């Protein structure tokens, strides 16, 4: 299970979206991404529709809020084991769909 890696080049997909990136993350992880329980972290790797929860080949876990689609999945799927707080991005910030 710990072998899951973000295999596809999702970044190119996210680059088609319009974002106004906020200076700080609207999602706060309890122990930072690197310190998360790998089994719980796997759920986020599988379920985040922007594949922002990642594990590199050498096993380092990371999270980058900048491409967030603000769906809230990470707020629900792990209960309160990983995500400490989930807020809306600052006024005017975050993703802006042109199609939706």
């Amino acid at each position, binding site marked *: 299970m710990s072998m899951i890696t973000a295999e596809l080049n*999702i970044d190119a*997909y996210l680059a088609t*979206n319009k974002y106004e990136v906020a200076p700080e993350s609207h999602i706060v992880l309890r122990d930072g991404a690197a310190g998360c329980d790998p089994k719980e972290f796997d759920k986020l790797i*599988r379920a985040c529709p922007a594949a922002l929860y990642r594990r590199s080949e050498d096993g380092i876990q990371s999270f980058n809020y900048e491409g967030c689609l603000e769906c809230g999945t990470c707020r*629900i799927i792990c209960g309160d084991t990983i995500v400490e707080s989930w807020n809306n991005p600052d*006024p005017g910030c975050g993703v802006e*769909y042109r199609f939706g």
Partner: protein
Amino acid sequence: MADFDAVVIGAGCAGSAAAYELARAGQSVLLVERGNFAGAKNMTGGRLYTHALERLIPDFRDRAPLERRVTHERITLLADDAGFTIDFASQEMKEQGQESYTVLRAPFDQWLASEAEAAGAELICGIPVEDLIIDSSGVVGGIVAGGDEITADVTVICDGANSLLASKAVGARMPLPVHMAVGVKQVYELPADVITNRAMAQSNSDGSAWLFVGDCTKGHFGGGFAYTNAESISIGIVAGLEALANGGEATVCQMLEDFKAHPCVAPLIAGGKLVEHSGHMVPEGGFDAMPELVGDGALIAGDAAMMCLNLGYMVRGMDYAISAGQMAGLAAAEALAAGDVSKKGLSRYRDWLESSFVLKDLEAHRGAPEFLEGFDRMFDDYPKVVRDIMNGMFVVDGLSGGPLRDAVMPALKSVGIFNLFKDAKGALKNL
């Protein structure tokens, strides 16, 4: 005196409908949206059944940004290397009041919010509501947004599937993974004529709705969809969070990738230009996961109240949201006029919902979530069984074949005839 008679949180389907009715009834109403415009943060699969919108805005057909009327329904049972498709077209589904249209939320929600504005509602965009004003006895009296307090006699909560405010307003529990699914979708631009041909539609204003069950979610609860818009195709998958949490190796992004590359699906979007990648949650807990719908000074409508149906092959929530929003707006306006916005004064909202299709449908399907979450045969075995039967019937290799029975029976036996009967009975009862 409060700043507004009513404040509505969220300019999606439910919120704009509620604000529209409140404004039409002559109440002062503020509609607050976190996106830079209504629809900026919203995504849907794509199909709007019109009956609800028609009750709200009877002449919507002349003004609403509708993409295409759905004149072809397709459902595919997808195995990893095969697909069995039913294609349905009928005169009846084109009749006014029964027809459905594909929509894109950025244009659609802007239009719906502009109708509320034209009726007299005040719309502010780009500001998320951070909190509710709640007094010591639990009465909701407005919102906190952009650091300011804005007071109102009634607060209508329509903040969608990822509601951060439902728990504060009506004590809703945080949804469990088993109550939610996640959708991931991409939009591909293509010339209108090409889309019309691929949908086998008769004109550029008609198109198809195409739903998939099976390999798109790697055998777990969920499904795939493809809707034709005027000049683009929306394609995506929806996967249950509980199944994902416990599931195998596949990520939702990889599922969508494999789904798009499937030989039954790839030709639909071939040559298209990717213009957006979006994600959104779907409430699927159904009737039994719904919170209280009324509080003192507060009403809740749409996805925020779990008014959504996910049957795996179909997601439906926009018509529920529009009608529930409309009823919330009407109930709030009546309560304001009568001078009683207590829980009791607002309670006709719940009564109206109960006698309408919204709660009747949701109650009728209350067994669906549990049935579907445990129904891996539908998402894994049955698409393969159908593939094997069809291969038995249609693949001719010059070796002598037996009667139809020889193609059908081994495939059916592989899942167990008893399971088949049991599942058919369960499906007829719950879906």
